[in-house]
C-alpha cells in the first residue's frame, strides 16, 4: 500500500511538473513570433480567444505571472487549451479529442504487441543461448538502430508503391464517415496494419535484446539451478523461474522508455498521414499553430503518465517484494 501511495504522489508531482513546464516554455522563449501571429489573425480571433492566447503565452503585461498561472490551471480544468490557429475557430480540445482515439488504438496496441512479442522472443533466445538462435542477434541489433519513421518510409515504398497491397496514408477510406459500422471499422483496420507493423518491428528488436540479456543473467541465479535440480518440466523452469524474474526489470524498463517510444510512434503517424495526434502535431508545427502544439504536448505527456502508472502497478502485482516493502 505504501508503495502505491508513493507512486501516486510521484505521478501527481510529475503531472504538475509537466503542466508547469508547458506553462513556462512559451514564456521563456522570445515572444515576438507569437505576437505577430496573433496580429495576423487579429481580425478573425474573438476577444475571448485573444485573451486566452495572452494567458497561454504570457503576453498580457498587466496581469502578474501568478495570475496567469492560476488562469492557466483554471482553463485546463475546464478543458480549455485555447483556440487553434489553423482550424480556427475550433478549440484545441476538440481537435485533440478527435485525433486521440486513433493514436491510443494504433500506438497502444502496437506498442504492447511489440513488447509482448519481443519479450517472448527474448525469453527463447536467452534460454537457448549458444545455439543457432544467437545468429538472430545482429539482425535484431540492426533493427533496433533504425529510426521508426525510416522503416515507415520503406514499408510504404514496398507495400504501398511497389506492391500496392496496403494504402500509403490515412486512417480510413476517403469517402467514409467515422462511425461504428462494419465497413468503417474494416477500413480503419486495413489502414492501420502497415503503420502498426512498422511500430511493432521497430520496437520489437530492443525488447528482444534486453530480455535476452536479462534471461542470460537470471538463468545463472541459484533458484533456476534449484528448479532444474527438482526435475521440474523445462517449461516451468523457463517461464516460471527464469522468465518470471527476468521480466521484472523489463517491465520497469518498459515504463521508463514509454516516453521514448511514444515519441517515435508519433513520427510514424506523420509518415503515414495517420489521423492521430502525431500527425496533428506535425500539421500544427508546419503552420506554427502554437496553442495546438502546447495542447498536444500536454495530452501526450498525460497519456504517457497514465500508461506508466499502469506498467508500474503491473510491476507491483508481479513482484511481491514491492508490495510489502514499498
Amino acid at each position, binding site marked *: 500500500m505504501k508503495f502505491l501511495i508513493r507512486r501516486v504522489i510521484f505521478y501527481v508531482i*510529475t503531472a504538475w*511538473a509537466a503542466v508547469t*513546464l508547458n506553462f513556462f*516554455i512559451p514564456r521563456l522563449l522570445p515572444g*515576438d*513570433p507569437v505576437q505577430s501571429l496573433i496580429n495576423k489573425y487579429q481580425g478573425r480571433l474573438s476577444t475571448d480567444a485573444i485573451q486566452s492566447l495572452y494567458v497561454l503565452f504570457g503576453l498580457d503585461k498587466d496581469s502578474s505571472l501568478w495570475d496567469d498561472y492560476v488562469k492557466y490551471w483554471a482553463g485546463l480544468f475546464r478543458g480549455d487549451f485555447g483556440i487553434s490557429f489553423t482550424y480556427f475557430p475550433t478549440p484545441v480540445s476538440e481537435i485533440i479529442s478527435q485525433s486521440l482515439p486513433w493514436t491510443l488504438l494504433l500506438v497502444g496496441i502496437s506498442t504492447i504487441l511489440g513488447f509482448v512479442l519481443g519479450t517472448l522472443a527474448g525469453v527463447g533466445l536467452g534460454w537457448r*543461448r*549458444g*545455439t543457432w538462435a*544467437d545468429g538472430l542477434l545482429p539482425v535484431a541489433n*540492426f533493427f*533496433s*538502430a*533504425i*529510426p521508426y*519513421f*525510416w*522503416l515507415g*518510409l*520503406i514499408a510504404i*515504398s514496398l507495400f504501398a508503391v511497389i506492391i500496392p497491397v496496403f494504402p*500509403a496514408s490515412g486512417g480510413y477510406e476517403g469517402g467514409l464517415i467515422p462511425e461504428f459500422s462494419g465497413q468503417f471499422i474494416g477500413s480503419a483496420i486495413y489502414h492501420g496494419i502497415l503503420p502498426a507493423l512498422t511500430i511493432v518491428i*521497430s520496437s520489437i528488436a*530492443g525488447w528482444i*535484446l*534486453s530480455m535476452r*540479456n*536479462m534471461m*542470460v*543473467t537470471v*538463468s*545463472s541465479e541459484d533458484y533456476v*539451478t534449484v*528448479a*532444474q535440480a527438482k526435475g521440474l518440466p523445462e517449461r516451468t523452469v523457463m517461464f516460471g523461474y*527464469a522468465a518470471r524474474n527476468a521480466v521484472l*526489470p523489463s517491465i*520497469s*524498463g518498459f515504463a*521508463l*522508455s514509454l*516516453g*521514448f*517510444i*511514444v*515519441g*517515435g510512434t508519433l*513520427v510514424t503517424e*506523420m*509518415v503515414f498521414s495517420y489521423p492521430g495526434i502525431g500527425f496533428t*502535431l506535425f500539421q500544427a*508545427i*508546419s503552420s*506554427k499553430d502554437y496553442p495546438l*502544439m502546447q495542447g498536444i*504536448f500536454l495530452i*501526450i*505527456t498525460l497519456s*504517457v503518465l497514465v500508461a*506508466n502508472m499502469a506498467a508500474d502497478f503491473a510491476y507491483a502485482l508481479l513482484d511481491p517484494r514491492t508490495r510489502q516493502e514499498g
Partner: protein
Amino acid sequence: MSVQIDPVTADPTSTATLTAVAVRSKRGRRVQLGILRNRKALVGIIILAVFVVLAIIGKWIAPYNPDTVNATAGLQPPSPDHWLGTTATGQDILSQLLVGTQGVMLVGLTAGIVATLISVIVGVVSGFIGGIGDEILSLISNVFLVIPALPLIIIITGLLPSAGGLTVAFVIAITGWAWGARVMRAQTLSLRKRDFVEAARANGEPLWRIVFFEIMPNLTAIIASGFIGTVIFAILSEVTLAFIGVTSISDWNWGTVLFWAQSSQALVQGAWWWFVPAGLCIAAVGTSLTLINFGIDEFVNPRLRSTAANAGVLRRKKIRARIGFTPVYRGKDNR
C-alpha cells in the same frame, strides 16, 4: 526512433555484479584493451571510425556542392556521374550525405557530452549525499524520464525562432540526461557502501577526493555506456527533427535529405536511392554504437561474456551449454 534500453545496467540487483567487476577494473589500461578484444565492440568501433572520418573530410571529398541545382539531371537513379543518384532538382545525393555526416556527428557528440555531464553530476551527487537532497534530485530525474522527450524537443525547437545544430544539441541534452543519472545514482549508491569508500571516509579524505579518486574510476564503464546511449538518442532525435522539418531545412544532415525526399514525393515516384541510403547510414551508426555498448555490457557483466566468447567453439564441438544439464563431451566423436 528507437532507443536501446538496457535493463541489465538499470536493474538495481545486477549492480552488485557490475561493481564487482568495476572495482577490479581499477587498472584502467586493462579495461581499454579488454574492450578491444571483444569482437562486437571492435566491429562497432571500426564502423563508427569510418563515419567519424567521413564527418571530418566529407566536405572536401563530396563530388558536388550539395545545394547546386541541375534542372537537366533531375531524379536520376545511381550512375557513374552520381553514385547515389540525384534529387528532383538534380542535386547530388551522395554529396548531401557526405556533407550531412558532420552535422549528425557533431550534434550527437555535443548532446552526448553535455547530457553525460549533467547525468554524472546529478547521479553521483544524488547517490552520494542521500537524504532529502537525493529524494529531490531523483524526483527531478524521474520526472524528466517520464515526460516524453521527443514531443518536448519538438515543442521547444518549434517555438524557437531559428534552431541551428548547437541549439538542437542543447535541447536534446537537456531532455536526455535523466536515464544516465538514474543508472549512475544506483551505482554510486552501492559504491558508497563499499569498504574502500568507507575507509577513505574514515581516513577523513575530503569529499572531492573520494568522489574523483574512489568513486569516479569505478563508474567508467557505466559513464561510457551512458554516453553512447545518449549519443544514439541524440542522433535519432536530431534526424527525426530534421525529417519533420522543425529544424533548419537548409543545414544538411541525413534527416534533411529524408525531409526533402518525403516532401518531394520520392516514395510515390519510386526514387528509392533518395531515401534508402540516408536511413542505412543512420542505422549503421546506430548499430555501431549499440555494438560498442554491448561490448561494454559483456565486459562488465561476466555472465553475458562467457557464452558470447565461446559460441564458436560450442557450435564446432556440438556442445549445448545450458543451465541445469551439464553437457558431457567425450572427445571428438562425442561418445
